[in-house]
């Protein structure tokens, strides 16, 4: 039984033996992307779970060339890697970054914006687990409304995070970047295709992939893929691309599955009241109104 997607990517493993928690969505995103890009990918990882679990001397789990950057400097190091290799005459390589949500939407946003502005020939992948996981679950700019973290606890009066998730995809697109996309590890075929597409495009590419963290989200390790699928199916996340100045939706759920059931499966949302869930559902509907007006569907 041939699987076309499996045939289209490397059979080799480039992220192996890592110490991520069982069922870690971020590690699945990194693994899949590197199997697309192959042995000549040069990866840059800032502080965060993926560098913490991948580089524990002498256990070095990337079998392609990889380097840890400063927390804020994923994109600037990618710029340097790309320019340096090009200056030395290398042609067949891909500079790819894997940064968390905190490393992207908060501390690394300036370097990312600069790289997009210069249109450096790099792929920047944000694996979004919706909090600063490696330091023990603190709120980031990409933590969704209502989520409980150690810095946004759920109490009687305040029910977790009071701010909505930053819209990094459209922030990247607003630079008029050559290619930006959203993805989810629950739809791995779509993610693989987007990394493939990004690798064929000249200039800066940004891919934002939802990558659940069983530890921080309060789900069982075997639920990572399902929950990453469900967030798309219930409409709280969407699969889209930005290219040639326009937005395109790649996947339109016929009917949304229940937002409540998505939220209540996860420890970080279990405290939410019916009103909180209504607020979240209303914000979803508003987002989809925007999508139906502004995206090619």
């Amino acid at each position, binding site marked *: *039984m041939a*699987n076309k*997607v*499996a045939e289209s990517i490397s*059979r*080799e*493993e*480039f*992220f*192996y*033996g*890592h*110490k*991520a*928690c*069982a*069922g*870690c*969505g971020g*590690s*699945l995103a990194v*693994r*899949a992307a590197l*199997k697309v890009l192959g042995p000549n990918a040069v990866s840059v990882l800032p502080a965060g779970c993926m560098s913490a679990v991948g580089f524990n*001397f*002498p*256990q*070095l*789990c*990337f*079998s*392609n*060339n*990889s380097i840890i950057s400063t927390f804020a400097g994923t994109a600037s190091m990618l710029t340097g890697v790309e320019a340096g290799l090009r200056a030395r005459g290398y042609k067949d390589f891909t500079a790819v970054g894997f940064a968390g949500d905190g490393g992207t939407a908060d501390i690394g946003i300036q370097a990312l914006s600069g790289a997009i502005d210069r249109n450096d020939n790099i792929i920047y992948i944000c694996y979004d687990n919706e909090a600063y996981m490696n330091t023990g679950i603190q709120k980031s700019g990409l933590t969704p409304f209502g989520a409980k973290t150690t810095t946004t606890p759920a109490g009687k009066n305040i029910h977790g995070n009071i701010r909505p998730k930053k819209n990094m995809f459209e922030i990247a697109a607003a630079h008029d970047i050559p290619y930006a996309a959203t993805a989810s590890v629950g739809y*791995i*075929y779509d993610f*693989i295709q987007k990394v493939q597409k990004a690798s064929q495009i000249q200039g800066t590419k940004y891919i934002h992939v939802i990558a659940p963290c069983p530890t921080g989200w309060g789900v*069982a*390790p*075997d*639920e*990572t*893929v*399902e929950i990453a699928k469900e967030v798309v199916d219930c409409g709280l996340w969407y699969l889209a691309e930005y290219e040639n100045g326009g937005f395109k939706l790649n996947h339109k759920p016929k009917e949304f599955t229940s937002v409540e059931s998505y939220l209540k499966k996860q420890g970080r949302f279990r405290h939410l009241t019916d009103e909180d869930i209504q607020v979240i559902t209303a914000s979803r509907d508003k987002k989809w109104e925007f999508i139906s007006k502004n995206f090619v569907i």
Partner: protein
Amino acid sequence: MRPYIREKKSFTFDEVPENTCFEAGYLTTVNSGWRSIRPAVNSEKCVGCEQCYLYCPDGVIAINDGKAVIDYDFCKGCGICAKICRIGAIEMEAERK
């Protein structure tokens, strides 16, 4: 090819690379001790669709002669493969020591 376990050697302080630059894909420890449950593939049932191979976060599943085969040195027993297999060819069993 996958990275493989190297001979375990202890590094003296002087041998730890100064510029933190070292061979890529150098593995010295397995992850099998993390498991409390382990996936068991029923080869009779497996149709080699490669779903489990694509979704395993640890990349420990390979397809050999059309059947899923697991590298138990590095499988963490997360159970994602068992859930993703549509025809139920993988079951999670108690880990035997």
